[in-house]
């Protein structure tokens, strides 16, 4: 398989960056997209050039490291897959493939395709946890959670923190990421108590970090590799309305 790769190259955060074009003659249909990037890098190293920096680790769609716009779509063509799960069968011989980093101000480029997603860490620190001390837990079966609810909480918890939702959104909103966490905990008795405050804190942090607001276009859901559903945003909105009331109340106290 012969391919042309148009890859975004940017030496550092301050560099302007530009596309470079590379030809690859030895691509194969059973490769994954990251194995193709490996092959490109091996070729560049052999030519004495700086290989393309990109993030990856588990290579099975669970760590959330890999993050590329492939032909203009986060994680490339295909449904509910990460870039590392993207198979070369999705492309045609002779095709030109464009590869870019996530493009959003909240994830500045570090080098080539590697972006800084520490803003997600800050959102998590703002409230992405249950306030429980190690050692103070009660027996797990003290909490009864219906199977349906537990499954729904799991679906929300399946988020891998990749950032595709932000990259897909025209407003660069992190709503799906935030909603997934808020909803997971709101669905479980362990997390429900603080649900309102959590929603408030995480959303405030999201705004503060410059993520846009959600206008319900649904492109996040369409590109999310883990199929995290928009219904979690609806649940977050409900929590947030409560948060609004509570906050107003708290200020009066």
């Amino acid at each position, binding site marked *: 398989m012969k391919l042309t790769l148009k890859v975004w190259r940017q030496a550092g955060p301050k560099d302007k960056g530009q596309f470079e074009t590379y030809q690859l003659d030895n691509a194969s249909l059973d490769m994954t997209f990251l194995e193709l990037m490996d092959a490109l890098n091996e070729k560049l190293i052999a030519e004495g050039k700086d290989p393309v920096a990109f993030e990856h680790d588990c290579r099975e769609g669970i760590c959330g490291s890999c993050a590329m716009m492939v032909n203009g779509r986060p994680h490339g063509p295909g449904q509910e897959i990460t870039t590392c799960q993207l198979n070369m*069968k999705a492309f045609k011989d002779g095709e030109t493939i464009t590869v870019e980093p996530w493009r959003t101000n909240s994830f500045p480029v570090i080098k080539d395709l590697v972006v800084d997603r520490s803003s997600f860490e800050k959102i998590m620190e703002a409230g992405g946890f249950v306030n429980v001390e190690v050692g103070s837990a009660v027996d797990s079966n003290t909490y009864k959670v219906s199977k349906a609810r537990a499954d729904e909480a799991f679906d929300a918890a399946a988020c891998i923190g990749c950032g595709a939702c932000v990259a897909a959104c025209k407003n660069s909103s992190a709503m799906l990421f935030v909603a997934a966490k808020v909803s997971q905990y709101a669905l479980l008795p362990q997390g429900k108590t603080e649900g309102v405050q959590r929603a408030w804190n995480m959303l405030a942090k999201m705004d503060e970090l410059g993520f846009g607001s959600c206008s319900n276009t649904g492109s996040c859901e369409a590109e999310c590799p883990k199929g995290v559903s928009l219904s979690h945003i609806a649940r977050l909105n409900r929590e947030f309305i409560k948060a609004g009331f509570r906050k107003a109340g708290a200020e009066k106290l």
Partner: protein
Amino acid sequence: MAKLDAKIPNGPLAQKWTNHKNSLKLVSPANKKKMDIIMVGTGVAGAAAAASLGQMGYNVKVFCFQDSPRRAHSVAAQGGINATKNYRNDNDSVYRLFYDMIKGGDFRAREANVYRAAEVSSSIIDQLTAQGVPFAREYGGNLTTRSFGGVQVSRTFYAQGQTGQQVLLGSYSALKRQAAKGSVTMYERRQMLEIVTIDGKARGIICRNLVTGEMERHSAHAVVMATGGYGTIYFLSTLAVNSSGEAAYAAYKKGAFFANPSFIQIHPSCIPQLNEYQSKLTLMSESLRNDGRVWAPKAQGDKRKPNEIPVEERDYYLERRYPAFGNLVPRDIASRAAKERCDAGYGVGETGYAVYLDFSDAIKKQGKKVIENKYGNLFDLYEKITGESPYKMPMKIYPAGHYTMGGLWVDYNLMTTIPGLYAIGEANFSDHGANRLGASALMQGSGDGYFVLPITINDYLADEIQTPKISTDLPEFHDAENEAKARIEKLMNINGKTSPLAFHKKLGKIMWDRAGMARNAEGLKKGIEEINQLEDEFYKDLNITGSTDSMNQTLERALRVAASFEIARLIIYDALNRNESCGAHFREEYQTQDGEALRNDEEFSYVSVWEYQGNQKMPNLHKEDLVFEEVKVQQRSYK
């Protein structure tokens, strides 16, 4: 041999941990605030430990090479986590889990540590549930369990096929909570290169900032290695591709002894290699063997499609050889049995190096819906990679490198032979002997992190309360930094032609062929020569493009490969020394007539503990004799 005091408490096994806890020193809250702890690693072990120590009031500095602690390799664990809750009244108990682990580990683990791991297991599930981990539930709302290989009770808790993700995210959330409180400071995108010791005690680390390329010095009163395993030594393995034994090697080189390096688990059910570009192998969880039946054709070289082979012409070889455990035999046994079939010419698939894992009977009996509920996401994962649906066609599987039972030697307090240097999780050697039972790594890592290290480390730190903050201007920091810099310079200046990836692939092949599922003395000796040769070539022909003063992933990889040569040799020395077959370590010279492992308790009932003597030099062997006070050592049988 004063250095090898395992500090196993006296008294009956079931009381050891309680008695020990009561005898350990404490550190007052006011003193904790003045003390620093470095945690290298944010997998299930490191994240849990850092969160716990932060909560207790220590200042914890946490390091990982990923951009977020949530991406640590633990995130990929699939099948589950064990605990002795006995929710099913199937007569499970702490003793039974302990016994299963000791037996599963082929009587090569330390009794006291294993018992403690079983003892704290229930609290882990409670802790994680309280943190919002959505473990699978029954319709009635209670937690559910499943059974896992090598045992006869149902004690494995799970969250679909993504248990590692959920367990890690639970601990990660606790870590974030402490980070928000300021007790934990995060240092992501750092590659730890050196351990700094002062007057023989671990006092800090040197790491490279992977964004700026700068060398950094970090000091603390104690240092914890939660850096995971070294299974990527085979290049292709089920591990995340950036996992390595680099950090453990840095500790070993500084004087921490390394235990049982050759005990490496080869997991029986992985998707076979599809092509030469492949960068990793994908695991198909062991839980699948609860309902899947393993078979190979009865005829050699049978090229028919699996559905076209009638039942009478299929060899359900695990059920045939091990009627008591059948498809649920431990991993080492299942792996070797697959290798035996394929080597003898009964394998399937294009290369003949695969066997079938078949769900058709289970689907017939239980219905597609039930099977989908249990394994849906694993089936999808398999289909994404191979293009075949396990609902219609049996999976093709083959063994692959998966988990390292060996690791840094630690005493009962989880301290290495360097005072103040601890090792937890997969990075230590302590609980799995020569073979690990499924769903016990998340358990051991989380147990070490939440309930063991945060208790034992106080005993050491109680004697350090007079030690002020450690300055990073001390000459020891200076020297260690220079050492790391010199190593990098050396690699950068080779200016050869071959990439670190290419070297890693070659090393992986040597290790798989010489020290993989089956080993023999001759092959192992050749292996050493081959590794030395490859290492020499590496230092002549390595090519790292780019610079050191910014992100350079080729350099990162080169540093990991450089560390792997010594670990590879260590594995081989250990495998050569151990003239017996036990657990995952199978020496072809030592087997019974029907091909089962032949253990030699007279001569090898010990932990082999290696002390570094210099690169390409034979390390010194120390022995920790294994004393079994509680269990009767038996030949392991699953027949």
